[in-house]
């Protein structure tokens, strides 16, 4: 397991995704991707985007929605936007 997978931020993201997708925390692995579980479909994806905005205070726009399709991608986006912010 990489350092990133152990990071507190990854754990936070897992927690947010579990809530957004109504999954148990165990069902959300650190490398989970869009489509890996039936709940992370088109509607689920938009729930995830809204929860990420609320929980991490980041802005997600139409250009970004299609790129945030895995927990690692979400992690990198949050890091980058927190730094830029």
């Amino acid at each position, binding site marked *: 397991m990489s350092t990133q997978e152990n990071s507190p931020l990854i754990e936070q993201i897992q927690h947010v995704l579990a809530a957004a997708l109504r999954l148990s925390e165990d069902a959300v692995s650190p490398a989970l991707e869009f489509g890996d579980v039936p709940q992370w*479909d*088109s509607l689920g*994806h*938009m729930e995830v*985007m*809204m929860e990420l905005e609320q929980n991490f205070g980041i802005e997600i*726009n*139409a250009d970004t*929605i*299609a790129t945030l399709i895995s927990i690692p991608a979400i992690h990198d986006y949050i890091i980058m936007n927190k730094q830029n912010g």
Partner: protein
Amino acid sequence: MGNDMIKQPFTIKSQVTIPDHLIKEVQSKFAYVDEYIANATILPDGNTIELELRSEINKQEKNNLEEKIQRVVLSMVKGAYQPKVEILEDYLDKQVPYQSDPNIELLKRQEISQETPGVFTLGPLVTRLIEYFETRFVELADSFAAQPYRFPILIPARYLQRVNYFRAFPHSLSFATHLREDLDTIDHFSQHAGCDAHGNLTAAPDSFSPIQNLLSPAVCYHLYFALADQSLPEGKMIVTAVGNCFRYEAINLTSLERLWNFTMREVIFIGNKDFVLENREIARQRMQKVFQELELAYRVESANDPFFIGEFRKQAAFQSAFQLKFEIRASLPFKNSTLAVGSYNYHQDFFGRHLNISLPDGSPAHTGCVAFGLERMAYAFLAQYGFDPNQWPLCMKGLI
């Protein structure tokens, strides 16, 4: 009439400003807010909503109506993502000879005859145009060696439920039923059934069987349902079909622009992601040449489906972000507007997952389709080129 009756038209101030990119979408949904509404317009300020009603209403009814209007606006606007608009082809500036409203001439020539809102009988000119455009779309299908299919007009409710259609598009559903298999019921109906002054069938609701089928809203769904719970042995398919589609649009039903019952020709791709996306793009490029030959003024741009209020914000944002839908929007010069005459669609693995259609490696199939509305195509052509065949593009000379 009491003093508390609301005179019309009247205006409502929206609690939130409706952004420009959502004005048409929100306005179209007002058709389903209340049966009192005869017309609803959002003014360019994005805050003022003008309502015309079928009859006067009292204060309580007005409050109910206003509450529902505000609910629609909030649901569609609050937290909405600004769509990513991508234009793939732009020939909207092409000069075309006709600038008048084709409806006037179509009615004068008895080329269209309305049976009920959104349902028209078409005369020889419109029919010939549709048949011509059909040959061009079939040529596209042939260029892919697409296998021909024929699909029914009815579609089982249980099929649509399986792909969440009721949640996404409840407002546009059209239902089919029949009399219960009961001699007394059938006898009673045959003796007493009729239509009232509004055209409503006067028969006891319990004369009818529970609804198990609907009028089909799309062509390609039938193929996906036929392939449900199966593996595609060759891992890919290209199919074509033409069919009747039914989408109820209430007061938005307008001439041939927006029909309740219309015809679509589709070319459908099933396979892995690359196969579907590559073929969707090839279809677009081939059609670009056809539209050039037809000298059509049009644009191809990203779009979203008309999801109902509760689903709209999320589904539309998702479609836009992943560029799942591009519409062919033909110019309507007489109203300085455009009309979608076709679309290039990619559904990702939505149908593959929901209907358990798998590829040889066990993964869910991806699907996509290109679809052309035949009546709209004829209508847009007449709106741009009019009724004098001498003014028509070279490839269409001699058609009439």
